[in-house]
Every structure is written in structure tokens, then in C-alpha cells.
């Protein structure tokens, strides 16, 4: 399959985003931001709709939209006026509605939009591959540089704040990183399924270990393996890549559950 340039692009871009998503997924799961991931990814629809209707690069408009929604939800949640899940529920549905309205008004409901919703191996250009690699590298560097702060904040935010750590900056940095990996992943995986990449790898890792180092290692392994296997299956069976990757991930998750030391220990 690697004879085809579109598959080379899909694999290179896919492995980059799988690495970044798996790394970030540890904090998404331990900080219970799974719904936030789903909210940000669905909000991308608003940005994609605006981009398509205005004839701009939809990935760029979706990027701005996602980062704005992520930071907006974070800001509103930290002000404490509203629960985080309520804010996400409002902003992501409003963003999706905006996207649908704009696309409807522009009468440009076309294949482009479908590929953004469900992902396509054909959708990635070399520009997208480079953007995915660069942004994934930035996200990995951010995670490595602020790992101990991210871990402390995820475990016990109050004491982390009291000890003088830059908790607010770490929180907004984390939301921005989430928004960026989502944006670079949607062309391949699609808006509807991309949040799975931010939840399933760490959920799988947590089934297998209670040491964060091993959980992250398993998560990254799961993300990379699911991406490679999913892309290959999608090519062989000629089915959408996003759905295939997510189903492979789900299969690994079920396998990890079956092999979980905790589950085996509980068995008589």
C-alpha cells in the first residue's frame, strides 16, 4: 500500500498525530477531560463550515475556532459561574449549529464537508502532513517540558496552586495542546471520531498498569499500533480510515480489559 503517495501521506501524518494524541490522552483521562475533547472536536465543525463557505483553508479556520472554544470553555469553567460540562454542551452545539447554518446558506454541502466529518485518507496534502508533524512535535515538547506540573495539577490542583506552580498557564496550555492535536487529526479521522484518539489510548494503558510511566508507554504503543493497523485495514477493505482506526483502538481496549492485572486479580 505504501506504493501510493496518498497512503504514505496518511501514514506519516497519522503516526505523528497518534503519538501526540496518545501522550495528551493520559492527561485527558486522568483529568477527566474526555467530554472537553469531544466538545472541542465537534466545535471544529463551526470552523470548517466557515472556512468552506468563505473559501479559506478549513483546517486553519477550524484551528482558530477550536483553540478559541477550548480557551473559552476553560475560562468560563475557571470563573466558576457554570459547570465545565454545561459550558462545553452549550459551546460545542452552538459551534456545530453555526457550521451547519453557514454551509447551508453557502449551498456548499459537498464531499469536502463529508471528509471532514468522517475523515479520508485522500484528504491529506503534504502541507497537512508537515503541519501534523510540527504541531505534534510541539505538543510532545510541551508535555515533556511541563510533565511534572501537568501530573501534579491532574492529581491535586489545589495543592499544586498553593505550592506556587503556574497552574492556570499549565491548564490553558493543556487545552491549547488538545485543540491543536484535534485540528491536525480531523482530516484523517474526522470530527465525529477524533475524540476517541484522546481517550482510548490512556484508557487502555490504565487497564494494564498503575504506574504512570507504563500507562503512557502502553497508551503511545496503542495509539501508534491502532493508527498503522487501522490505516492498513481501511486501505485493504476500502472503508473510511477514522472508523477503522477507532474500531481497532476499541478492540485493543477490550483486549487490555481482558488482560488487566486488576481484573485477573479479582477473578476467583
Amino acid at each position, binding site marked *: 500500500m505504501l506504493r501510493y503517495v496518498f497512503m504514505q501521506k496518511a501514514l506519516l501524518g497519522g503516526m505523528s498525530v497518534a503519538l501526540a494524541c496518545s501522550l495528551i490522552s493520559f492527561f485527558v483521562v486522568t483529568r477527566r477531560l474526555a467530554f472537553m475533547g469531544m466538545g472541542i472536536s465537534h466545535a471544529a465543525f463551526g470552523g470548517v463550515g466557515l472556512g468552506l463557505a468563505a473559501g479559506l483553508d478549513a483546517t486553519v479556520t477550524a484551528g482558530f475556532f477550536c483553540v478559541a472554544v477550548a480557551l473559552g470553555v476553560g475560562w468560563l469553567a475557571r470563573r466558576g459561574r457554570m459547570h465545565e460540562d454545561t459550558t462545553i454542551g452549550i459551546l460545542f452545539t452552538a459551534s456545530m449549529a453555526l457550521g451547519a447554518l453557514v454551509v447551508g446558506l453557502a449551498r456548499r454541502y459537498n464531499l469536502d464537508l463529508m471528509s471532514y466529518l468522517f475523515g479520508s485518507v485522500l484528504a491529506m496534502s503534504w502541507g497537512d502532513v508537515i503541519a501534523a508533524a510540527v504541531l505534534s512535535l510541539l505538543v510532545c515538547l510541551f508535555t515533556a517540558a511541563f510533565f511534572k506540573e501537568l501530573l501534579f495539577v491532574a*492529581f491535586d490542583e489545589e495543592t499544586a496552586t498553593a505550592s506556587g506552580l503556574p497552574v492556570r498557564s499549565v491548564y490553558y496550555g493543556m487545552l491549547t495542546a488538545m485543540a491543536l492535536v484535534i485540528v491536525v487529526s480531523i482530516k484523517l479521522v474526522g470530527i465525529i471520531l477524533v475524540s476517541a484518539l484522546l481517550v482510548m489510548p490512556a484508557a487502555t494503558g490504565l487497564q494494564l498498569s498503575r504506574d504512570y510511566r507504563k500507562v503512557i508507554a502502553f497508551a503511545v504503543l496503542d495509539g501508534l499500533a491502532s493508527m498503522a493497523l487501522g490505516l492498513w485495514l481501511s486501505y485493504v477493505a476500502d472503508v473510511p480510515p477514522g472508523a477503522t482506526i477507532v474500531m481497532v483502538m476499541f478492540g485493543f481496549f477490550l483486549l487490555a480489559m481482558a488482560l488487566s492485572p486488576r481484573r485477573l486479580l479479582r477473578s476467583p
Partner: protein
Amino acid sequence: MSPRTCRVSEFFSGESEGPRRVIELRDVRVERDGRVVLDGITFTVEEGAFLGIIGPNGAGKTTLLKAILGLIRPSRGEVRVLGMAPQQLRRELHHIGYMPQQVLFDPVFPVSVFDVVMMGRACCIGTLRHPSRKDREAVLESIRAVGLEGLERRPIGELSGGQQKRAFLARALCLETRILLLDEPCAGLDVEAQEAFLALLAELKERRGLTVVFVSHDVATLARHADSIVCINRTMHLHGSPQEVLGSRRLHEAYRCEFDFLAGDGGRSDKGGA
């Protein structure tokens, strides 16, 4: 200064006539959402003292600790910790250990006792740096001090309630800690675990010369360990030795009920209604 080294701040390294005032509050008022939750709070804590802060539920005890930590700004009055406003504390934070009322962590969070205690050194290690051998030694020393040696690699969620409290105490102690701020550290522990925790605290205080601020609604427990007690219920009701505070009629006014310490149960009998 190397960010890897937790150095003693000038406050402690300088000369001083008599005990240093490590915490000072002058006429502190705290408002939240336009509502006054603390008003007219004035007291000082000297180095090496064990101060108990008591008051009924909702009296503002946790808010008071947060004002001392700089997490909440008073709308009036002044808080000074180690001679400066809490928001200005930088490397001085290495001297302050804080144990919140309840660490609402996920029981399956994949960190060991060692990892949790290492979190306490995060501000000392510095951004963009990783723990050094010195940091790891300090963490192990802190774990030994609270009697959790042998459990370093155990996931925190697998420990008993009392052991978890000890791990969080170790986290608060693993810097150059001189001041310990404890918010209801015995909440949720049975009597035996409470006594064991308090005995450990008394021993650590003596050995390390710690200043302890201990928030509790359990008056009897604090009366046995504290040098002095502040009783608050939104405003300041009393400040004195445990004997003075327990013997005062104003304690009953603060709690709006009668106490029966002579019975030795440390409990209270509601006579006036809460």
C-alpha cells in the same frame, strides 16, 4: 540560586531577637460573592508554635488558611507570611507545607507514594527541569519520616486512609519545610489512626522545629496538642491558651452550643441549637 536547591530564605537565615513572627494577620476581612465570610481576624504565630484554629462548620477556617497561603486575597486588612504578602512569596514557598482538607484524587490515578511525595518538590525542582538525585533522596527521607518506608512503590489508591494522610504529610514536608498548614488532617480517620497521626505530628514538630497551624472542628483534640487556639466563627471570638479558650463562655457563643470537656469525650451537646 540554582532552582534544584531548596535554600533557606533570608527570613530564617538572618539574626533575630526572640522568636520570629512567621504569620501575622491584621484585621483581615474576606468577602466571596459580595458576602463577608471572615471579618476582623487578627493574630500572630511565632516560630515553633502550634496554633489550633477551631470553629464550627462554615466558620471560615479553610478560607482563613487559603488567605494565609495567598490563594484568596483579603478585601481589607493585611496578611504577612515570613514578613511579606503571601502573593509575593517565591522561594519562601519552599518553607511552607500545605495539606488540604481532602485531596479529591481518583483512586485509580496511576501514581505511587513516591510519585505523590515528589510532587511536593515540584516548585523547588523548577520548570523545564527533572528531579535530581538530591530530590529523590529528599523524597525518600520524607517518606521515612512519616513511617511509610517499604510502601514507596505502592499505588496511592491502595493505601488505607491513615497511610494516605501520612503520604500527604510527607509531601508537605519534603521541602525545607518550616511551617505546616494543615486543614482538618484527621478528618475521616478512626480514633486510633487520629492518635497515631497526631503523635507523629508532635514528634516531627519537635525534631524539625516546625511551626504548625492546625485547622479542626474537633476542639478536644486540638486542646491536647496546641500551644494556643484561635476560635473563629466568621469573626474572631477567642485567642489564647487551650485552657483559657476552653474555659471561656465565648467559646459556647461561637459554636452556639455547650461543650462537656470534663466528660473526656471531646464532644458537645447541642443545647442552644446550631
